[in-house]
């Protein structure tokens, strides 16, 4: 139980501190940067800047039709594990209790067995994402240690969570402790790797949308 005590106490407290400080550091650092002003007049019929930003965020949820075929697997696989992760994180009763303890917010849980099934599918999709990264010649060249670390930090809580839920491989308190520690590791790594896209994607996509819509281009 000592490991579980450490995981539920000190480890989570440190992880949250690093996660919050790191995320705000990067976010404030990006958002407060001096902007390059565009003095050119907006193209006739160009939407307001904010609308252009929101449109780009929404439109880029799916690839342009020219690229659909080429990116079909990556797109669908990514949707599978992103939605899967969201359902697992926000749908399992013990996770809701964790969030309720932090924020006071709670909502009805999904059946545990259903979430377990979603977790298995999510894990398969994450393995698929890694396989693609390793097999695809261009993607493989572009990948660096940080990318693999981000994958590992994402997949570990899924694996350990599945083991803890099914009480497989070790005593429950050890499995639960390892699961919580893996979540703590994810939180610590989050601001420093590409996992930060969970926060930054809207800003980067929106900024691109603003610039291009000003010039009358739909991205």
């Amino acid at each position, binding site marked *: 139980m000592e490991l579980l005590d450490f995981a539920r106490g000190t480890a989570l407290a440190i992880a949250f501190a690093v996660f919050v400080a790191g995320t705000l*550091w990067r976010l*404030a*650092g990006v958002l407060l940067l001096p902007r390059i002003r565009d003095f050119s007049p907006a193209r006739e019929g160009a939407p307001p800047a904010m609308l252009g930003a929101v449109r780009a965020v929404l439109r880029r949820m799916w690839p342009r039709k020219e690229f659909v075929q080429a990116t079909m697997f990556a797109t669908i696989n990514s949707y599978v594990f992103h939605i899967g992760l969201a359902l697992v994180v926000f749908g399992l009763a013990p996770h809701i209790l*964790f969030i309720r303890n932090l924020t006071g917010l709670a909502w009805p849980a999904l059946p545990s067995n259903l979430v377990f099934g979603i977790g298995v599918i999510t894990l398969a999709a994450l393995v698929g994402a890694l396989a693609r990264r390793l097999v695809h010649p261009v993607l493989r060249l572009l990948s660096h240690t940080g990318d693999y670390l981000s994958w590992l930090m994402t997949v570990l809580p899924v694996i350990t969570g599945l083991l803890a839920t099914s009480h497989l491989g070790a005593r*429950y308190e050890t499995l*639960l402790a390892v699961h919580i520690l893996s979540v703590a590791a994810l939180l610590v790594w989050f601001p420093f790797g590409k996992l930060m896209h969970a926060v930054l994607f809207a800003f980067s996509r929106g900024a691109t949308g603003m610039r291009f819509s000003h010039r009358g281009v739909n991205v």
Partner: protein
Amino acid sequence: MPEAMLLGDLLRQMGISRRAFLKYASYMASLMALPPSVAGVMADGLAKARRQAVIWLSLQECTGCTESLTRSFSPSLEDLIFDFISLDYHHTLQAASGEAAEAARRQSMRENRGKYLVVVDGSVPTADGGVYSVIAGRTNMDMLAETVEHAAAVIAVGTCASFGGLPQADPNPTGAVAITKLVSGKPVINIPGCPPMPQAMAGTITHFLSFGTLPELDALQRPRAFFGETIHDRCYRRSFYERGMFAKSFDDEGARQGWCLYELGCKGPVTYNACASLKWNGGVSFPIQSGHGCIGCSEPRFWDRGGLYRPLSAGTTDVGKVIGIAAAAGAALGAGAAALARQRRASTSAKEA
């Protein structure tokens, strides 16, 4: 009763048949997860056993352990005390008091040197020279050291004796410690629980009487037979846990339907004890069956592990303040980095101009 009398002879004198004795041995063997063939060996061992001298020390405790054990059902401590063992010293149960009681303890230690068992309930206060619990003018530390010196083995009964228990809870003003912290060079067996299960106590002594050894223990020196599985493993509400059906409060519809108490802070998944299989009061019920989650009382530091009603999956520390400080620090760092970038840009523009 002559000390030299064999237990088998004693039971025959009391009119207990061989059949009843074998039945008891079979029950005990199955309780301790021993193979069925061991029942006969256990019965023979018990029949040949001489009355076991036991000295029971009640230290920094609430007498709940003794209450639990003496009010248990068969095979009960009464059976053991009055039929199997010679309880030479026990504050609550013995007739003698004062100096006579202390003399009985010393006499037993002298006459059974190297053979007697010491049973301890309660933790031992060590702060300020151990003055917070004193018996007959002697500190618990002192009396324990003297009593265990020539004991065959020590049995720590209850969570206080096994792990420090409530007296050791933060801030532990009396410096309470478990028996294992103070006893070395002797086999020590822990039978934790607040209170402990009487069957675990009876089973351990029966094993010792039958085979002359202590049963197999886990990493926390608890008998595996009784502490080998979690409450959750044997809980009749487990199916609701698997289906994700949890009571949200102690009086909601889920609670009435007997749904899992995980959300109400049940510690069953991380608590090793036999409550869910053997149950209490002669197999009538156990806490979860009565509608309350397991509080994990047979685990070390159960009182200081984030609260009895906090769900297991929730963190144990209040991270609100930590997050607040971290947020301020992170925002300040980010703003500082952006300000530096602005400064660099301004100086670059000035040079270009």
